[in-house]
């Protein structure tokens, strides 16, 4: 696939910038209760006695696509991003448990919601909001050969 979105939890400093940038990219200011595609997860380094809240996001690995019995999740050809066609989603939640990042949500109608990799931005030659905003280099967006 032509692009790769990665997340390095050791580099993440827990600043929440990606969590917020995701909201900025997908929602109007008025959408106060909007949900970010990035999660918040507490991780502990026992040796250093240090805890931080990291924000894992979709790495477009395709696990949800492979698990979906309804064919609602597919890979977009040009970018390689894993997207959902909500019309086909039956709400069976088979995707939820296989997601290695635990970042799959369901909307009020029970349809699967996931990160779209900011595909509109990619088509404009920009990068996903989370990768662009990350100052620590924990989220990267790279072209793969």
């Amino acid at each position, binding site marked *: 696939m032509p692009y790769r979105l990665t997340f390095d939890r050791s580099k993440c400093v827990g600043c*929440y*910038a990606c969590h917020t940038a995701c909201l*900025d990219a997908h929602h109007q*200011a008025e959408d106060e209760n909007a949900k970010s595609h990035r999660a918040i997860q507490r991780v502990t380094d026992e040796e250093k*006695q240090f805890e931080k809240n990291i924000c894992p996001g979709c790495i477009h690995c395709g696990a949800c696509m492979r698990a979906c019995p309804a064919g609602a999740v597919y890979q977009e050809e040009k970018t390689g991003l894993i997207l959902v066609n909500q019309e086909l989603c039956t709400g069976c939640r088979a995707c939820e448990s296989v997601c290695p990042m635990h970042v799959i949500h369901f909307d009020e109608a029970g349809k699967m919601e996931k990160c779209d990799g900011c595909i509109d931005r990619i088509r404009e030659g920009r990068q996903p909001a989370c990768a*662009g905003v990350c*100052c620590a280099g924990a989220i990267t967006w790279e072209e793969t050969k």
Partner: protein
Amino acid sequence: MGKKEVKKTFCGICGPCCPINAYVEDGRIVSVEGRKLNPAQGGGLCSKGAASKQYVYNKERVLYPMKRVGEKGSGEFERISWEEAYEIIAGKLLPIREKYGAKSTIFYTGYPKWYRPALLRFANAYGSPNYCTESSTCFQATNLAWQSIYGNHICFPDMMNAKTVMFWTSNLYHSNTPMSKMYQSFKKRGVKTIVVDPRNTATSCEADIHLRIAPGTDGALALGMANVIIQENLYDKEFVEKYVHGFEEYKAYVETFTPEKVSGITGETPEKIIEAARLYATNGPAGISFSACTIVHHINGVQNYRAVQILPALTGNYDIKGGNPTMAGVSSPCNEYGKVKRYNGEEAIGEKDFPVWFDLSCEEAQCTRLADYILNEEPYPLKAMVAFGFNHRMWPQPEHLQKAVKELDFFVNVELFLSDSSKMADLVLPACTSFERDEVKVLKGGRFALAQKAIEPLGESKNDIEIIMEMMKRMDIHDEVLDQGYENYMRYILEPSGLTLEELRENPDGLQGKVLIQPKERTYEEERFHTPSGKVEFYSETLAKYHDSYGYDGLPVYRDFRENSEIDREQYPLILSAGARKPHRFHARVYRIPWLSGLEKETLIEMHPDDAARFHLQEEEEAVVQTPAGEMEGIVHLTINNYPGVVHVYHGNKNGEANELISKDYLDPISGFPGYKSYFCNVRKKTEGGES
């Protein structure tokens, strides 16, 4: 689809003012992205900057001039015209000035800071010595400590050329997130890092040495390091002999701070204290990175910081490349910032209480005791306040200040949001955000840029400086620079650089000034230090002058806040730290941004698990924090990052205000800064008598 544009502007939410690309469609911001203007910036943003859209289009924005119609504090206002607002201001202020004198009007500025020189000009032209800022409780004490030693403005470390950097109580990744790549480069470049911090943080975990000390013991640690450096002959004897005043007295004093004794005070091991002292003194050039206010939020804050800030001079790291240089790289001259002097022909508020604040002038009055000054008419009646971004939550016991402000005859607050502080005002005037105006930005490396107006101001909001200019016009008071209008004001700022406003307009990424000043090292070889002795004052003559009258010491004497005999430690066994950095907070202002406030529960009472166990408290349990000053309800959050025995609560939250817990009289006697980061408290379950 409407017209899409990318506007090159700057964030204005906190101090660093990072460059931003605003994507604008049909005159509305659709999204924001970070922008890279210098190699140290990674081009990203922090969470606050990323939430800019919700800051600009916030439902609490004040959009029109508002006149209070209900009781003070009721929040009942009615919309009026700008004309009427200016008429009210002139109609109220001029008679007050006539009757009580200009000094009875306080000119105050909170955040943002960009218009400050213009407001100071306004105060001067009006004739009041009482120009004050939020720095009465924030940064200035840090600079004051430095000035008492070196006589100049604080010198920040040259991180690009240092071989060792010592970070004294700052969590860089959360306080200036867009610089993260630069911090990460230390490891690659082989730079050694020492972090002093009671908490375990993303920054401390990367350090070669983390000195984890009890809050407020920084002075003892610095004296202990000096003890090692002098004992082991690692100090710069030539510099000390030639340029230091009071070395013998200092040396005799630090002799008593052996690593063992300092270990007992700070809780860090003697071995690590020795190791850090050796690394800093021998692996030079070494710079110290100072946090804005952490150290000075202790009642021995100024003296603690003096002990820390002496270390560059002791080790020969003052004013050298890679140390703490006076000139960090090339610069270009400009007008305004740091150049407007405060009118000091009359006594200002705070002058009797904190004389050193005025001797080591920072060109502002000291309003830390503002509530008492208003209520007690001290040193004279205070009747009016012209404020920009006045936020009572910056003070200890903010509700006490709210009550005092209520007593003013006239109070106008220029604000972005209809804050609780604004509800005490007679008039609230709508300011616009950085996205809604043009502004000349003075950047590092002698560079300048024009922050482009990305969108038209919302409602009838206006740029703060234009509001200042209009107020002055209506009162017929004049200043030669402000009388020329805002465009010319921007030209005036730029003038010494040799650049024109037109050139900046044509180059949205900014330009380097045509007039450049090349950095020099060891400037003291040509120019004496601007201190009473003309030397670096390890023994401060400015402070010693007040020894008999105020009890100040010339030496950086360590006094332990825990020896405070007035407080019953059995009743208040824990230490309270209010306002330690969080990546998504900045004082009170961003609680109103739902995308940020939703990131954690409010208000968190952060405790070490061992302390929570001791007091039978559990994660997410409702609890009450109590101090000698008051009580606050919140939610317990356990974290092993905390220093055991220390409870952290972030301030500025109307639903649980940590600053309400800090006594208004718990102040550093030199600076007047509240001991926000080391007070005394207990924590109990919300329902009394409950057993866990």
